[in-house]
């Protein structure tokens, strides 16, 4: 069992938890993720490692469906059944100077360790962060501690520019140039960011989130098409060059169990 050491409600949909997991913490690097099961009947769900300190692993999760909502019901002192990692390949840190990170919704969590790593290496770091509303913007204060520039977009205009992150980017690109981009968020957001960046000649790394089971390369559930070839996101990713990702295929794969997820959620009401 893995104990919840601290919990912070970041907004109505998103929580942060620190879990005691020495063997996950031991070799974790930015870009790695974990798979957890809340209880002994639980689904295996993947979440990015946002931070590590000593034996403690920080995760930030959006209460989207059954398992993440179930997790959200737990409190400090409770334990979760399984917690395994670090999984995946650590992020590929490129040797470019002006880095722009684009975060959509809870994507701000997985982006956090990557941008921080770029700053640690002395790069110029810009953040474009977007969410539905002001309340849904997470980690802003933590980002403020190290980012050189921050731009905000909300769907309803309650904070920053009204619109999507791509709207902010479009404005930004009229006056600024960047060497390299990282986009993490919902698939549609990553897809449109990559398309826009391509027009401006900026390469974009994306972090893919297909449905996973084992996370060890055993089942093939997490397969994604990258440049016409098949990769397993759990062992070959989750980060891939955005230009080569077949987003439409992935969007279809991710929503294959929509009806079933709905049935599960009814059980929680």
């Amino acid at each position, binding site marked *: 069992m893995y104990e919840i050491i601290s919990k912070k409600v970041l907004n109505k949909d998103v929580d942060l938890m620190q879990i005691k997991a020495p063997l996950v913490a031991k070799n974790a690097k930015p870009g790695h993720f974990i798979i957890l099961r809340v209880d002994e*009947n639980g689904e*295996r769900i993947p979440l990015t490692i946002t931070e590590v300190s000593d034996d403690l692993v920080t995760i930030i999760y959006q209460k989207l469906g059954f398992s993440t909502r179930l997790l959200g019901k737990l409190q400090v002192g409770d334990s979760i059944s399984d917690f395994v990692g670090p999984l995946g390949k650590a992020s590929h840190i490129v040797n470019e100077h002006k880095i722009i990170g684009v975060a959509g919704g809870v994507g701000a969590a997985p982006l956090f360790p990557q941008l921080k790593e770029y700053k640690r290496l002395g790069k110029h770091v810009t953040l474009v962060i977007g969410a539905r509303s002001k309340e849904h913007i997470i980690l802003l204060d933590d980002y403020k501690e190290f980012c050189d520039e921050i731009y905000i977009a909300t769907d309803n205009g309650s904070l920053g520019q009204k619109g999507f992150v791509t709207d902010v980017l479009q404005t930004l690109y009229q006056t600024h140039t960047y060497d390299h981009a990282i986009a993490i968020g919902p698939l549609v957001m990553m897809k449109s960011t990559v398309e826009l960046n391509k027009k401006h000649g900026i390469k974009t790394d994306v972090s893919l989130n297909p449905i996973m089971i084992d996370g060890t*390369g055993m*089942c*093939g559930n997490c397969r994604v098409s990258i440049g016409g070839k*098949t990769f397993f996101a759990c*062992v070959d990713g989750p980060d891939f060059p955005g230009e080569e990702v077949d987003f439409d295929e992935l969007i*279809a*794969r991710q929503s*294959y169990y929509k009806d079933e997820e709905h049935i599960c959620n009814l059980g929680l009401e």
Partner: protein
Amino acid sequence: MIIKDKVKMPVLNKKIRQTNFEEVACGYDIELAKLEAKRCLDCKNPKCIAACPVQVPIPEFIKLILEDKLDEAYYKIYEDNILPAICGRVCPQEKQCEGACIVGIKGDSVSIGALERFIGDYALDNDLSKNETIIEKNIKVAVIGSGPAGLSASASLRRLGYDVTVYEALHDFGGVLKYGIPDFRLPKNIVTTEINKLRTMGVKFEKNVIIGKSITIDQLLNEYNYQSIFLGTGAGLPSSLKIKGENFSGVYYANEFLTRVNLMKSHTFPKNPTPVKVGDNVAVVGGGNVAMDAARTAKRLGAKNVFILYRRDMDALPARLEEIHHAIEEGIDFRLLKNPVELIGDKYIVKQVKCEIMELGEPDKSGRRRPIGTNKYEIIDIDSCIISIGQLPNPILRESTDKLDVDDWGRIKTNVHMTSIDGVFAGGDVVSGAATVILAMGAGKEAAVEMDKYIQSKKQ
């Protein structure tokens, strides 16, 4: 006197089987077991033993059944095979022990597997375990992976007095025995009970640890002070058909499909929250045990039509004979000499499979007649497709471990069970590629002997 016909094992009614995951083959009771045991001729030169990968003393244990010495029969088997209840159920007996049995020349061979299972079950039911005094060596060894190879290595090492820790990546122990082979062939409580026996012996089990990621091999040797390591990480990586449309939704690799059902229990959805869906028409590609398991599982999940698409003919199916019989009984539709060439979808969801119709030509390297394309095609409407055409080792260990030599297929290279890293041994599917439970167990046991020799030689 030779009794030509074997004593048939009772099986679950076909109708009941359609919808449930209860074990199909019900096993002998003592009367039936004795009747069958009588058929063994107690050969002077028993061919059956030579054909068993771990040389179980077959006529000896069969004789003990006739003498009502069931405890002794169990201990007899246990010396060579710690998991008789499992091997009795899943060994491809017709290719191994039973395939070589003398009685089989003129009639049915002695049902060695069924008898071995009978003894294994007897031991489980009566909580038999051999009282062995273990003389502690206080030397730490690690076993990576809790499949048959790892379990057998850890039992052997523990009996030699080592302090054994098994590390498993998943949240449950048993490898393919848990996540691959379905309940209707191998009830999971058998695997759990056998693992608990090893715990009682003093073997330590750690789940949720991925060696190469959570802890590296280097760290195990240098920080954790393991004197030797056994790698039994299996062959989990599914092989792909390399055809168009393989990534459409509704296309599963057998591993995903079977893991959802066996490990995550998705057949009880939504009680267990991991879903699975197959639809009415399911194509299963392949002809081995994995394909049979996938097909029979799909049927139990409610599929109306399940087709096995296999590119050779019935005689060439690599699956265990018993599974093929049960699959036929359950209404699985064998569409032979069909080779899928494309999966056709709509909005990224699979709808059809296009197959080339094959013919058999001259025998190939495997001795089986080679399938040749005819340039004629057939299109079948499907709701899902399960690909079961083989597995290779996953890349985690080799990518995270410098100096671990592997061949072109990613299988770990060994020399008398030792890998290219001093003190690190390997066995089972990770060395051989996808094979069998008993071969993996045999490899684990032999590797344990070599690990012991290695550790002893280092002490001198």
